[in-house]
């Protein structure tokens, strides 16, 4: 249960792996005895002494494992620990660094590449938004202090949401958000949509509050894409 313990005391872990991007599609992590959690099989190279350990159920213990199985938000994760540098990449996806200072990052498990060992991951219910994206009703949360790397199809644009500037996002282009943000589901479905003359942007997620939203310059196929 090592990883769980590490997650419980994020502030007592003095060693923090440093994340840096090498190009935009490769993540390099410098480690000195500390650990990171990364998507299974995403290591492309390493330098120094590294140990790779598969973590069943996302390294969240029995409860997390069961939750993930139940919610369908599965994530195969490995723990990488050692001294040296480890490089990660996944299908030439663009990688974006996110630094967390006690706030929570919401990201689809398929878009999460690597998190600092000190960050807690979990699952959360997203409701209709998840359904509209075709990603299921649940999403992954990352919480604590440290860095995480998320993947996108094309470099992500980071958009700030503030009380005076709410943001609407196409469900297919949304990848992640962080901070204190409320999201609601916006539907522009009218009788015209039914008539086949819809605006093509029938569903949007509206973000209000204070935080950041990560949007990729590409749209996944969603049921909303055609109406």
């Amino acid at each position: 249960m090592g990883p769980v313990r590490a997650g419980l005391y994020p502030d007592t872990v003095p060693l923090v792996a440093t994340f840096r991007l090498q190009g935009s599609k490769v993540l390099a992590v410098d480690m000195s005895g500390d650990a990171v959690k990364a998507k299974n099989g995403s290591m492309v190279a390493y330098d120094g002494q590294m140990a790779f350990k598969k973590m069943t159920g996302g390294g969240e213990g029995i409860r997390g494992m069961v939750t993930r199985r139940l919610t369908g938000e599965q994530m195969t994760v490995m723990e990488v620990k050692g001294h040296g540098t480890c490089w990660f990449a996944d299908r030439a996806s663009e990688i974006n660094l996110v630094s967390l200072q006690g706030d929570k990052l919401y990201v689809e498990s398929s878009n999460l590449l690597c998190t600092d060992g000190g960050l807690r991951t979990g699952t959360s219910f997203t409701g209709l938004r998840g359904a509209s994206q075709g990603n299921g009703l649940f999403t992954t949360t990352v919480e604590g202090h440290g860095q995480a790397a998320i993947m996108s199809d094309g470099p992500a644009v980071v958009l700030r949401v503030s009380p005076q500037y709410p943001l609407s996002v196409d469900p297919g282009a949304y990848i992640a958000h962080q901070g204190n943000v409320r999201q609601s589901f916006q539907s522009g479905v009218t009788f015209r949509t039914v008539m086949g003359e819809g605006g093509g942007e029938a569903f949007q997620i509206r973000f209000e509050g204070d935080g950041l939203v990560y949007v990729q310059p590409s749209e996944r196929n969603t049921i909303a894409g055609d109406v």
Partner: protein
Amino acid sequence: MSAYGAPGPVIHDPMTLPSDDNVNAYTFCVELKGSQWFLQKGKMIAYYGSIDFNGIGHGRLDRLVRTSFHSPLHASDWVVAEGQGKMLLADRAFDVNSYDLENGNLTIRSGNLLAFQPTLALKQSIVPGFLTLIGTGKFVAASNGPVVFMEPPIRVDPQALVGWADCPSPCHHYDHGYMTGLMGGLRALTGVGGASGEEHQFEFVGAGTVLLQSTETLMADQATGAVPHEAGVPGGHGVSGHQGQHGQQPGVPRLPGQLGDLQRRFGL
């Protein structure tokens, strides 16, 4: 707000987003101030402010459609965005770029056009699979890799062609010298013995500009709408895309080494 970490990526808000310019190579930001833009369905990825998206069939927009849309059968693929705010456009992580036309014209492959101002008129080109924009205004186009501008006379690879502006005359060009005789025909048909795959090009002559993308991977075609079934109308038999009536079934991919319909000339 340094809470979100300085080393991270650039964080945009409505103040820092550019107006009618690229955010990065793959994302374009349009500022709407009560004005309108035409965009292809599903290319909006996010917006600030209050923007309405309406299908072209929307009653109030009829007049707009009459003035700037001239391929009615194609209209259902387009959306009018109107309102106040800033809107981000992107297309499957392809490069996007904006172009200004001043009382000019530009013909573009249908799959590449993303959005345009209603001050431009969109028409079907006589060349099947292409659209022509006429007038003054800005439009946004996607390409597989950055776009290169070339001056005619030039011969280009068919897959790399994005479009052309002003009036160079586009025509086919075959390297006959290499591909004549029985052996040449065999080479062309089978690819055995040295078909380079570059024996067929598009040739442009005249004054104007030719736009090329930097890869030979085509972007998926958008339907440009059918043309009237009339004698003398290219593609008038409902065939869009290539010149395609002879030899080749429409929609069947061309085999490597198979040249245009050149092999017919050798009786093969």
